[in-house]
Every structure is written in structure tokens, then in C-alpha cells.
């Protein structure tokens, strides 16, 4: 039924399909304002990639940074990986070894007075300053202004800093000594040569 023989849209008028900067169909998308800053650079980069015809490799600056996988959308061929549903975070030693980030310090061990506790010369100790020093814990202590690493023993009000090597003397704390427990050693990192 030809109601009108003129007027309306003319065939072939307007912008050609897929002629924009992306060379493919585009879609309008609602994006939360807070994400605009993180999404725009990827789109801009994709644009310049198409324009120059060369694939851009992103260098990842920060391991915790989330990259929006816009580049993967072009890969459509092939079977989906059967492991896709089972993807989990990779293991992060930081979360395993550090529980109070603000209070955790690394120090280097010197000497072998604690060899029985597995602390060797040059090992790195992970020290948590936030923990209460209980009897039996390995601690970083400050005796009269000097640092030492020893096992803390408290018994009936007597405090002893015990070495874990028979060749070393224990330190008995007398009333006049000034003792500060600087932190509690939670792990030791021993690297083999």
C-alpha cells in the first residue's frame, strides 16, 4: 500500500553504518559517575588502537588495580574455558602473613642466638607491633636502649629473655633494667641461596 509517494526517510541518507571511530555498532550505556574516570581511558585507548591499527598492550602499574576487560570482548571464537566458573583470586602472601598492615614492620636478623627457633643470620622477621607480648612468644625487645630478639618468658613476675642457642646467655630483667617490648615476631622468612 503506497500511502505516500514522497517524504519520510530517504534510503542511503545519513551517516554510514559502522563508520564512527569504533568501526562497529555502538550502544548507549548508563555508567555510574564514579566509574567514568576508570572507563574513559580504556575507551580512548581502544579508539586510538583502531585508528592506528595496532594492538595496545597495557602495562599494569599496580597489582591491585582493576582493569576493565574491554579488550577481551573482541575474542569470540572457541570454546569457553571449563575453568571459568572456578576462577578464584590468586594467593597473596601479604594477606597470609600480615594481619595488621599499619603495625607490621620487617627487620633483618643478625647473629645466631635464636637459631633454635629457626632464625638464621640475614633472615627477615615479620614483626607485629599491635600484638600483646604473651609469655612464650618471640619478641623484639629493647633493653636499656638496645634491640634484641629473644623468646619472652614471664613467670611469677620474673621476666626473662631467652636465647634459643646454648652458647648464648639468657637475659634476666632486674628491677633497674629498662625493658620495652617493641613488637612480636609472627613469621621468619628464610631464603636459601
Amino acid at each position, binding site marked *: 500500500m503506497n500511502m505516500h509517494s514522497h517524504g519520510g526517510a530517504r534510503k542511503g541518507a545519513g551517516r554510514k553504518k559502522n563508520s564512527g571511530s569504533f568501526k562497529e555498532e555502538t550502544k548507549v550505556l548508563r555508567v555510574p559517575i564514579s566509574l567514568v*574516570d576508570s572507563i*574513559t*581511558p580504556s575507551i*580512548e*585507548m581502544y*579508539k*586510538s588502537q583502531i*585508528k*592506528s*591499527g*595496532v594492538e*595496545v*598492550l597495557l*602495562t599494569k*602499574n599496580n597489582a591491585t588495580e582493576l582493569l576493565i576487560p574491554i579488550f577481551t570482548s573482541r575474542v569470540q571464537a572457541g570454546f569457553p574455558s571449563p575453568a571459568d566458573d572456578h576462577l578464584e583470586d590468586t594467593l597473596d602472601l601479604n594477606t597470609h602473613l600480615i594481619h*595488621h*598492615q*599499619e*603495625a607490621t*614492620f*620487617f*627487620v*633483618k*636478623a*643478625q647473629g645466631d642466638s635464636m637459631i633454635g627457633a629457626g632464625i638464621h643470620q640475614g633472615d*627477615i*622477621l615479620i614483626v607485629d*607491633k*599491635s600484638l600483646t607480648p604473651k609469655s612464650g612468644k618471640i619478641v*623484639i625487645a*629493647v633493653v636499656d*636502649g*638496645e*634491640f*634484641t*630478639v629473644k623468646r619472652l618468658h614471664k613467670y611469677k613476675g620474673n621476666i626473662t629473655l631467652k636465647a634459643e642457642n646454648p652458647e648464648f646467655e639468657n637475659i634476666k630483667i632486674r628491677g633497674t633494667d629498662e625493658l*620495652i617490648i*617493641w613488637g612480636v615476631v609472627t613469621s621468619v622468612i628464610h631464603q636459601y641461596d
Partner: protein
Amino acid sequence: MTSRAKFALVDCNNFYASCERVFEPKLEGRPIVVLSNNDGCIIARSNEAKALGIKMGVPYFKVRDLIVRNGVVVKSSNYPLYGDMSSRVMRVISQYSPIQEVYSIDESFIDLAGLPFHLRNHMQSLRQKVKSWTGVPVCVGIGSTKVLAKLANRIAKKYIKFNGVFDIDELPYERYCKLLQSVEVVDLWGIGRQSARKLNRIGISSSYDFYQADIGVIETLLGVNGKKVYQELYGNSCVPIESIPPTRQQIVSSRSFGSDLKDFHELNQALTSLARKAVNKLNDHKLATTTITVFIYTNPHKKNKTCIHLSKTVGMTTAIQDESQLIPLIAKILKLIYKPGYSFYKGGIVLSNLVKNYPQQDLFLTNEDNQRKIDSTNKSNAIRSVNKRFNESLKYASEVGNDKWKPRADFRSNRYTTSWTELLVI
């Protein structure tokens, strides 16, 4: 009136000296001073050093005798250490209030309004936690405005009997007036030297004079900011907490050189190194720059020599965000301003008109140019990652030289918390 505002100012006690003591406990009780970049002036003192009469900002050489005679411990400033310790302290503080403003490297305002705690006990527990987690001692001032909280902090620091926490709103009116009489107006938060001079001229010298003055006089003299301080002294909160730091307006990277530089290449070497520092900051804040200033000075304190101050600012059509573009530009600008025959003692660069670093399209560039730009960004990123991991081992050619420019830091302690090779050894 809405529910009463309540703020706390948490301030670290002699922050730089305290950081040094965390890793050198035998310095406890001994006088310590910390020197500025290039070991020039005294920028921080422990209580013991203050008691000896060593003033803030004096050149080190002027008090060297006093320092040696009294066994004062001298430290070059160790900003990597102070910065890391600061962020630890700030994160612990943030556990005590949902709203926090990090005001400076060692001060933080927090909002206490509506918290269901006994505030003084809450702040005592903050104090203990910061001390036990980081080793840094802090004092807390509480008040219904920021100006009052700052004032309260002074009291908390000054009088041991308050145990480091003081709430100024608990002070009876007469005692409050007495307190204001004992504080000079220049020591109020928000009153600068310039404003104080204006106030002194009309006979206002103590905070109490200021408090008793007419609000109209204050406003005409100091404008709206002075009026805000005035009203805050009366307990009306006018300055809210800024929990989101404002975006940076400019990045400055400058140094006094370790020794005076005459040679163009030595200057260029120093500026290249400073440029890389500035670009790192630029990238940390995800910004790019469109305006670059390069400046070099001769020493204004030297007698019988004319002091010259050379600088040039250049604007660009596209924003720059990586050093491979910036470094050649800086060399070009330096070539324009450099004059032979002078000894330059300080220099630096300023990046301004900062914009978000979206990859920008330059209309006048061809595809190849664009590609080259992308390549250079990738290259710079790679260099930066290598340097982060391997302790500044990659350098630009213009950076290599005799290191004469490097600022002096003869008494720097280790970067205990940011460098694997400088850990505390026990």
C-alpha cells in the same frame, strides 16, 4: 540549632624526632634536631632540643656549637620514612571516626559528632593504639569547632595532667578566658603572620583581645576568613572537615644543590633527575601537565655577588604525562634561560595546569606520531616499574654525571620501611 558539632585534632608529638626514635630507641630522652633538605636549617626538634633554646628554622651552622656542646643528635630529613610512618598513623586514626581529614603529614582532624562513645575515653584509646601500633606518640584536642580543637591540642600537649587528651568545651567560661589571654593571636589556627600584624596594629595581641573585639572590625580587617576564626572561638563551627583532598593544582620539584653549579650539563643533569621525580608524582595522581616552568637561582645570601633568578614558563597544545617527552623539553627551556659564568645554587621545575591523564588525541599528529606517543608511554611505564623494583637503577643519559648537584644528607637514618636494603638490623 542542630546537634552540636564536635571535632578532634590528632597531632603527633615532634613527629620527625619521634619517627627517628621508633627505630633508635636509645634516642629516647635525648635532644634531637632534624635538618631541612641539603642539611640547611633546623626544621624539627624534640622537646629536649626545644628546651636548649634551639629555634625553628635557624641555619644549622649557626647553632652547631650549641649542638656539639649539648650532645644534640642531628638527623638529615628522611622523608621516605616520615611519609610511610605518617600513612600508618593516619590509617590507625581512621579507625576511630567515619570522617577524617588528613591535614598535614602529622595532623589529622576527625569528626566526633554523634559517636556513641565517651569521647575522652574514645580518644585515650586512640592515643594508646597509635602509640602501640606505630610507636608514634600523639595528643588529641577536642572542641566544637576546628579552631577550638586546635587550641585544645595545645593544652593537651602542654600539661601532663591531661594525659594527652583535652576537651576544651569542658572548661568553665572564666578559665576559657584565661586560656585565651595566655595564647597569642598569631597562634590561633587560621590567623597567619600577616593577619596578626594587622591585628597588632590596632592593639589586638592576645587571643582574648581578639575574642573581645567587635565582629565588624574583624571582618573589615581580615575578611571572611578572619570572621570565621572569630565565630569558631564562640563555638560556631564554620570550617567543615574536608575528607576528600582537593586535586593538586601544581607539582613542584626543586632542590638546593649540594654544591653550586656553573656548567650547563651539570644543571641539566640535576633538572632531569628532578623531572623524573615530578613525573612520578604526576603519575601517582593520574594527572598530566600542559604548562612547564623551569627555574634556576644564584645564592641570594652571598655577599658582593649579584643574585639572579632565571625562569621560563612554556605551555603546550597536548598534555604531557611521561618523562621521555618532558626531559627533552626541559633541556630546551634550560638552554633558553641558561647564562654562563654564574654559580647556581638552587633549581627546579613546576608543572601546572594539571589535567586528568586521558590519552589525548592531537589533531595535528599522524597515525605514526600517535603510535610513537603510545610507544613512549609504554616505555616510560616500563622504566618506572624497573626503577621501583630495582632501586632507581635505570637512568636517562642526561641524568648521568658527577652528582655534584645532589643535596647533602650527611646524617640520614635508614629508610627502614621502604627499602629492602635498609631494614632495621637486630
